């Protein structure tokens, strides 16, 4: 089980058994990104060995450069079918009005070895 609450500088990371979905949402610029993401990697290694399927839902509007490195490693691990047989589907959500969040998602889509969908959502609290 993984359930890491969000802080000002780190995202929420949570797995829902019921929906078989891992959610990562918030902003990511923790003091030490590698230490912060370590529990996610440990959890994921375990899950990939025993699961046939996993949904991953990502909604990160900003991440610093070291978190970007971690996220890329995370996506590569999901896409590494030599290491596991778990089928993965990933959606990356971004707030429609936030260009930089879309840019971030698209750069990952460009670079990551695993395919994913990018879906906009509307934030009704924003008027712009």
């Amino acid at each position: 089980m993984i359930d890491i609450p969000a802080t000002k500088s780190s995202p929420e990371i949570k797995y829902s058994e019921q929906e078989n979905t891992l959610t990562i949402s918030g902003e990511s610029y923790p003091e030490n990104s590698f230490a912060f993401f370590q529990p996610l990697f440990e959890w994921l290694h375990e899950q990939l060995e025993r699961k046939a399927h996993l949904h991953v839902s990502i909604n990160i509007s900003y991440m610093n450069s070291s978190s970007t490195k971690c996220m890329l490693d995370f996506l590569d691990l999901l896409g590494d079918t030599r290491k596991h047989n778990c089928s993965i589907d990933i959606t990356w959500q971004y707030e429609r009005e936030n260009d930089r969040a879309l840019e971030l998602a698209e750069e990952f889509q460009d670079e990551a070895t695993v395919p994913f969908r990018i879906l906009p959502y509307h934030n009704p609290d924003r008027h712009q």
Partner: protein
Amino acid sequence: MRNIIEIKEFFAEEGILISFHGSFSHGIIEEIGSAVRRHLEHERLERGIVADVFAVYIEQTQNVRNYLKRKNFLDPAQSSAIVLIVQTEGEYLLCSGNSIAREDVPDLAARLEKINNSDKDALKKMYKEQLRKPLEADATGAGVGLIDIARRATGKLGYRFDRQDESHDFFSLFVKVGGGER
């Protein structure tokens, strides 16, 4: 002590929005970052500019903090750093300053030079290559901070090294955001 009003007037003349001088902790970086973002959001700036100012601020301050933490300079003249955010018509200048061991200067100067001689496409390529490099043991950053900063900046990065004492220089970094093409 100079009269505080002189310092205040100096800040106003220079357009200094925020300054912090001292020992950078993660908590301080977070708090100042939130304050800067709230302030910029209030100014009704384009959202992308707010995001770039914030991102450059985070990379700059985390770079400084990680470097000083690794070096563990004992003298407060070297362990304290400074960050300034300056607002001039339609653009923002993010400035940071910290001591650097003289032996680390040539490598940093070469990296900055290389970054400044690269266009945005070359920077994107460098960024991706660096992300793919394996980390060095005990790394606290991925070595991509400066490249990320340059990608968000308008124009070239400004920098200088000033002699501080026989073994330290003072490194200043100036990054312009907004007011033109990234």
